[in-house]
């Protein structure tokens, strides 16, 4: 956890952040391909030997990725064998996907893979073609012999893709039939991750492929226990959790987009404070705007980081209220204890207490998208009441700033 915290703090320094991005962008294990030893380009010889029009086509024309350790020859064509121990570079890529937009292109080729040396009785696990989903699954199957059928979700993880329907009945049926899975095994069952269930109709899959869907546990790490217990998951294995660590790893993707919008807000505040009857004075601008720039960063950290991390400990069920309450607490502390926020003008104190808790609330509400328990009806309800308040609060804040300027200029 300390590690993640460390990364987030670094992310707040834009310059340092860019340097890190540069370093991260030089290492890209997903893109480095290697031909299999002796075999040359994948699928070649075996494919032509069996010479079938009905054969599965090879997705890796230019050679296999690093994590393919071997190739199994089957009557239906070759199947790449995936390693079940993740390398440091792969774990680093996971971190990078958590922190940056790298996750948008962190995908593997859909198709059939193997771990260990599976045979006609081995289990078939279904996964998405988001590399992290596939990596976590293959690492969980360490020491086992199994098939992994990776379906095309556009490089999106199982749960998110299931919500959109791309991890769904159509794609699954298409892959099962297209990869000729029925020819490879004697049994007729597939293990689909439970979090894929929102997109998959087990009844339809059975009807259209003959394969019975068994929903595996929520977390891939529970798969060995699930198998040992005769393909039964305990109620705990069926529950999605949302621990502090779960929440923490999601906060960079809340902070990053918000950080990008911060300069606009700071520019606007500089403009307001620099504006004088005689023109724009940037010396005054910097001094006047400093607390507001700091306030914006404070609201950002409160709404997009502290609220998610402390989620269950903050009163109220509504994310908007949680974010507002914590924002209010933070900024009440600021105006009473931090000299930068101890304004002479009551207008500025009022702006601080109106605007920043609302900004924190708005950012906290964004975290509903990353949470594992909010529902659409609830989010709509929060926005129905929240949006007018956010818009009203912003208007009031500008009016208060205008009042402050009028007062400052001595017009009244």
């Amino acid at each position, binding site marked *: 956890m300390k590690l993640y915290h460390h990364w987030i703090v670094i992310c707040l320094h834009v310059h340092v952040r860019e340097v890190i991005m540069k370093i991260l962008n030089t290492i890209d294990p997903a893109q480095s391909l290697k031909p299999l030893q002796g075999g040359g380009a994948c699928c070649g010889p075996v494919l032509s030997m069996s010479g079938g029009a009905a054969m599965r086509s090879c997705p890796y024309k230019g050679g296999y990725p690093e994590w393919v350790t071997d190739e199994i020859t089957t009557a239906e064509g070759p199947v790449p064998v995936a390693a079940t121990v993740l390398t440091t570079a792969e774990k680093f890529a996971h971190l990078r996907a958590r922190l940056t*937009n790298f*996750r*948008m292109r962190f995908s593997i080729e859909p198709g059939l893979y193997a771990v260990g040396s599976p045979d006609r009785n081995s289990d078939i696990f279904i996964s998405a073609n*988001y590399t992290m989903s596939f990596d976590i699954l293959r690492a969980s199957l360490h020491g086992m012999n199994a098939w992994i059928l990776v379906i095309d979700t556009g490089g*999106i*993880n199982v749960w*998110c*893709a*299931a*919500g*959109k329907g791309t991890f769904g009945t159509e794609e699954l049926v298409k892959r099962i039939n297209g990869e000729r899975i029925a020819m490879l095994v004697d049994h007729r069952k597939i293990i689909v991750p*439970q*979090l894929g*269930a*929102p*997109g*998959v*109709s*087990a*009844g339809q899959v059975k009807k259209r492929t003959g394969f019975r869907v068994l*929903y595996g546990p*929520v977390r891939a790490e529970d798969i060995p226990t699930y198998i040992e217990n005769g393909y039964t*998951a305990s*109620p705990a294995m*069926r*529950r*999605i959790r*949302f621990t502090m660590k779960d929440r923490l790893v*999601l906060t960079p*993707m*809340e902070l990053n*987009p918000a950080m*990008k919008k911060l300069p606009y807000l700071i520019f606007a505040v500089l403009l307001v404070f620099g504006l004088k009857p005689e023109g724009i004075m940037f010396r005054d601008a910097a001094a006047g705007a400093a607390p507001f720039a700091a306030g914006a960063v404070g609201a950002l950290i409160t709404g997009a980081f502290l609220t998610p991390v402390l*989620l*269950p400990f903050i009163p109220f*069920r*509504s*994310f908007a209220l949680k974010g507002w309450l914590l924002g209010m607490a933070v900024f009440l502390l600021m105006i009473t204890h931090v000299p930068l926020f101890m304004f002479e003008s009551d207008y500025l104190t009022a702006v601080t207490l109106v605007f920043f808790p609302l900004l924190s609330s708005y950012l906290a*509400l*964004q*975290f*509903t*998208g*990353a*949470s*594992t*328990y*909010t*529902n*659409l*009806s*609830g*989010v*709509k*309800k*929060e*926005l129905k009441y929240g*949006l007018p308040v956010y818009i009203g609060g912003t208007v009031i804040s500008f009016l208060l700033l205008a009042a402050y300027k009028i007062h400052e200029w001595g017009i009244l």
Partner: protein
Amino acid sequence: MKYLKETATLTYSPEKCTGCGRCVEVCPHNVFSMSSGKAVIGDRDRCMECGACAKNCDFGAIYVDAGVGCAAAVINGILRGTEPSCDCGGTSGSACCC
């Protein structure tokens, strides 16, 4: 952790239930349990409207207005005049863009 009270759209018709247990299997929040051969709903406030139960009920016993509880998606929908959409246009999104 529970979300807002009494907002979930989950409805269940016990008379259609055959007791197959699929809903109990797929629900990630333990909303369903089995009692005397039929599914029963426990705490509805735990429902996140993912739709897994309805999708996997072959007997039409469960209805839920399924969707993703993501503020950015709902705001996107309002701005574009469409249904809530997780498609944030590529690079700008929060975690709901996955």
